[in-house]
């Protein structure tokens, strides 16, 4: 018995088929029948990501070791097949139920290291996963309704949303149904398969809180009510990364029924005009910037008019959560430590008598055992829902307030009763050098150190300091969202003498509220080991010189950049190696610091066009025809080979007609009309003949011949596709030039 057989009845057929295809692609890669770049983008679009040292090299503190994995095979450029990888798991709007939490716990234990890591975009990540375990892992998640599809790669990433949606006191309305609808509408949608880079959507219930951080997203939607109608203020073209951009307003008010088609139109414009070759300029923010928001709006509006109606545009799922228990008030005995937890981790819902509880997960990590225990607590106190947050925590909703002390005690018993959620203690960090191929400095190591040090002082801290947020990234790519924190850090390196020293650039002035309302700017780079002193220095100065109720941002603006830098200047000095070698290694890593382990990131995915995917699918289908032929299923082999030709032909037609249907007659007719001059006639004839004269009997020989012909047809489609891509690039250049 395999998991595939065991779970067959529980996996939605379409999802099951997708995973079967992915598994076949793994087999094809092992046979050398898929190019490594194509395979890399294929696995990325299933959330299977690379991880540090997967190029087979690692600096051990003295020398670079060449890791001798059993197989020479690669799963992408410079990426060893056997090297442990990361699996990202999409959780739309961060919402999951206890059953899903349990399934995540099981797969983390069996295929990873028993740790579930919550990311800054409400996903889960599992590390040290072997590529060949991923199809089974995906099936086990699919059986409980979780997909990893398009969790990485040049695709629509997880749709994030405020974890308090539906219970928030200040939201215009609950954005959950719309976030969910958009997530599943865009998932696998043909119009989002041809991006040059990733695309991240986010939802927020109101403009002034942090919630969805819409300003830093490719597409952001803020709930708004106008004339009694529900709609969204829509933003486009935001993003962090090395050079952060604030999103621009695409529409001040877009009725809810226009949200999905507008997103689809944006996707089409991005796919058509977005940069494809230069990854550093391929996010939509660069396109919006280049065209200007007015021209971008015009293009989107034009595109919107051409879209064929889709009934899913207005199908918003009902996601109303029902409270498990009656509302109650908190008027019982309070256990030790409860009040501090209540102050920072509990939010009183809009619905009287209920609270939302933030479970602070240190650095976003929980064990599989804790995940199961949390699932029990969700069932007991919250019902059927729990949400992940972009601050790497979990939120229980609908907790009857009288039960808060009991829940606190139970969380404490499983090591998750820490106070300080959403405060300076709740440090957010990306994976950094722990597992990321691009990491320069140890953001998690620093995060761990800061948490420990700040925890010791928390109760004596000034309230204004407690409320600050610290976020850090291991490099300038901003996965830790350092730009939108009060005090942000990103990893870099400096050379002192003959040695490298891990550093963090200090950023001040970022704003978490107002949906990531402003971005911090760097004031100077300090050695990693001095960062705790920097935090102390800055916060002490803030407390000492704060005027009235001045915010940290206002304080920073008042004292100015020069003075801020002066404040930390002495901490930027690195003692010589001979005097203090501890500066020359990173937090939690005794090896002498090196930049030698940085690999090629996969955040940008591989540049693989939608047509290449279609042609790859055609090849896979033809391979399946061979398998059918091998076991004597000649009729099936014939049908698959014919299907492979149609798939390739449809891929070509799709390049010119995005809404091409899949029915054979249309595909063949359109292919004939559009591509006769570009396609080698003898190869095109294979498709036309099979389409017009289906065989009345199926023999081994006839099926074999068709498989051969299908392969040649696919080769012809590749050649034709190259010509098409050249034409498209020229057209795109002309539009942008204009």
């Amino acid at each position, binding site marked *: 018995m395999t998991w595939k057989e065991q779970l067959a009845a529980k996996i939605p057929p379409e999802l099951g088929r997708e995973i079967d295809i992915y598994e076949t692609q793994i087999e094809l890669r092992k046979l050398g029948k898929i190019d490594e770049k194509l395979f890399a983008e294929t696995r990325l679009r299933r959330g299977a990501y690379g991880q540090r040292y997967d190029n087979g090299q690692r600096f051990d503190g*003295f020398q670079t070791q060449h890791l001798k994995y059993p197989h020479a095979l690669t799963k992408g450029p410079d990426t060893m097949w056997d090297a442990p990888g990361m699996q990202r798991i999409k959780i739309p709007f961060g919402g999951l139920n206890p059953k899903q939490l349990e399934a995540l716990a099981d797969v983390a234990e069996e295929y990873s290291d028993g740790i579930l890591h919550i990311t800054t975009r409400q996903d889960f990540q599992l590390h040290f996963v072997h590529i060949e375990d991923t199809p089974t892992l995906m099936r086990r998640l699919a059986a409980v309704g979780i997909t990893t599809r398009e969790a990485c790669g040049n695709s629509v990433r997880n749709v994030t949303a405020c974890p308090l949606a539906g219970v928030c006191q200040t939201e215009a309305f609950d954005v959950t149904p719309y976030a969910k609808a958009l997530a599943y509408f865009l998932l696998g949608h043909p119009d989002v398969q041809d991006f040059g880079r990733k695309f991240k959507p986010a939802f927020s219930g109101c403009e002034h809180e942090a919630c969805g951080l819409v300003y830093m997203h490719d597409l952001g939607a803020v709930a708004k009510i106008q004339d009694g109608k529900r709609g969204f203020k829509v933003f486009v073209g935001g993003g962090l990364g090395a050079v952060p951009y604030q999103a621009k307003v695409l529409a001040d008010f877009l009725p809810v029924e226009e949200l999905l088609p507008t997103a689809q139109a944006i996707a089409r414009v991005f796919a058509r005009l977005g940069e494809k070759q230069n990854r550093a300029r391929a996010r939509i923010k660069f396109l919006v910037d280049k065209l200007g928001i007015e021209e971008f709006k015009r293009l989107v509006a034009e595109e919107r008019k051409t879209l064929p109606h889709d009934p899913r545009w207005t199908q918003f799922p009902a996601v109303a959560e029902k409270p498990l228990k009656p509302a109650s008030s908190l008027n019982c005995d309070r256990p030790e430590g409860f009040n501090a937890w209540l102050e920072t981790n509990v939010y009183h819902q809009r619905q009287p008598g209920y609270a939302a509880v933030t479970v602070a997960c240190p*650095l976003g990590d929980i064990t599989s055992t804790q995940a199961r225990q949390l699932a029990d607590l969700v069932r007991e106190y919250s019902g059927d829902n729990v949400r992940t947050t972009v601050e790497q925590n979990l939120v229980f909703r609908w907790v009857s307030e009288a039960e808060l002390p009991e829940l606190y005690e139970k969380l404490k018993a499983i090591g998750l009763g820490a106070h300080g959620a959403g405060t300076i203690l709740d440090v957010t960090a990306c994976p950094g050098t722990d597992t990321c191929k691009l990491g320069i400095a140890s953001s998690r*190591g620093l995060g761990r150190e800061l948490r420990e040090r700040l925890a010791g002082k928390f109760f004596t801290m000034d309230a204004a300091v407690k409320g600050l947020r610290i976020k850090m990234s291991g490099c300038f790519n901003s996965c830790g969202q350092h730009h939108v924190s009060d005090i942000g850090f990103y990893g870099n390196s400096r050379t002192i003498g003959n040695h490298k020293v891990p550093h963090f650039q200090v950023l001040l002035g970022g704003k978490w509220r107002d949906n990531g309302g402003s971005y911090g700017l760097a004031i100077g780079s300090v050695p990693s080991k001095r960062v705790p002193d920097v935090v102390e220095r800055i916060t002490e100065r803030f407390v000492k010189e704060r005027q009235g109720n001045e915010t940290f941002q206002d304080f920073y603006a008042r004292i100015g950049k020069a003075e801020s830098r002066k404040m930390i200047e002495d901490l930027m000095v690195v003692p010589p190696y001979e005097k203090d070698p501890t500066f020359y290694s990173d937090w939690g890593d005794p090896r002498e610091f090196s930049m030698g382990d940085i690999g090629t990131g996969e955040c940008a995915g591989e540049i693989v066009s939608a047509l290449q995917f279609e042609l790859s699918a055609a090849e896979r289908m033809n391979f399946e025809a061979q398998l059918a032929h091998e076991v004597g299923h000649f009729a099936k082999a014939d049908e698959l080979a014919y299907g492979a030709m149609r798939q390739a032909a449809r891929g070509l037609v799709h390049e010119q007609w995005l809404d091409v249907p899949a029915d054979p007659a249309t595909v063949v007719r359109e292919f004939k009309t559009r591509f006769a001059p570009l396609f080698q006639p003898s190869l095109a004839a294979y498709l036309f003949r099979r389409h017009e004269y289906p065989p009345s009997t199926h023999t081994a020989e006839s099926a074999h011949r068709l498989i051969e012909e299908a392969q040649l047809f696919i080769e012809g489609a590749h050649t034709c596709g190259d010509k098409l891509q050249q034409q498209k690039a020229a057209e795109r250049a002309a539009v942008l030039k204009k």
Partner: protein
Amino acid sequence: MDLHKFGVKLFFVNQQDRELTEFIPVFHGWIQRQALAGHLLIDVHDYSHVHHGPGILLVAHEANLSIDEAEGRRGLVYIRKQPARLRDVVEAAQQAAKQLSDEQGVQFNDGQFEVFVNDRLHHPGATEIAESTGGEVVPKSTDPRERLAFVVKRG
């Protein structure tokens, strides 16, 4: 049936209060020397911030090893990832434990250890576990959602 996904936990009898992070350089040293025969040692991971978690993890191609704190009991955990018989898995875990003893003075409980099956689909029974480990085997009473685990007692 794929039955290689076994895990073994050998319990510390001393150094229970030693800082977990002190084991980080120990594992890095093992990688520098590729000190565990039959294993390609890859990386060290710090989970000391996680309550009752894998503590300090040493990732190898063949197995994950950790100074594990599950259930609040410190031990050396060896979880096999590549095909091997249970007998060999136990032996590999003991080999790693011996290395830790020789280098760091860690003492292990020789009379009792745990075996678990890191696979919820395929798992052997107590009799097969006993045959492979040469000890008295008692199923560990756990949450049914947890992995199947056994306490192995050796005279």
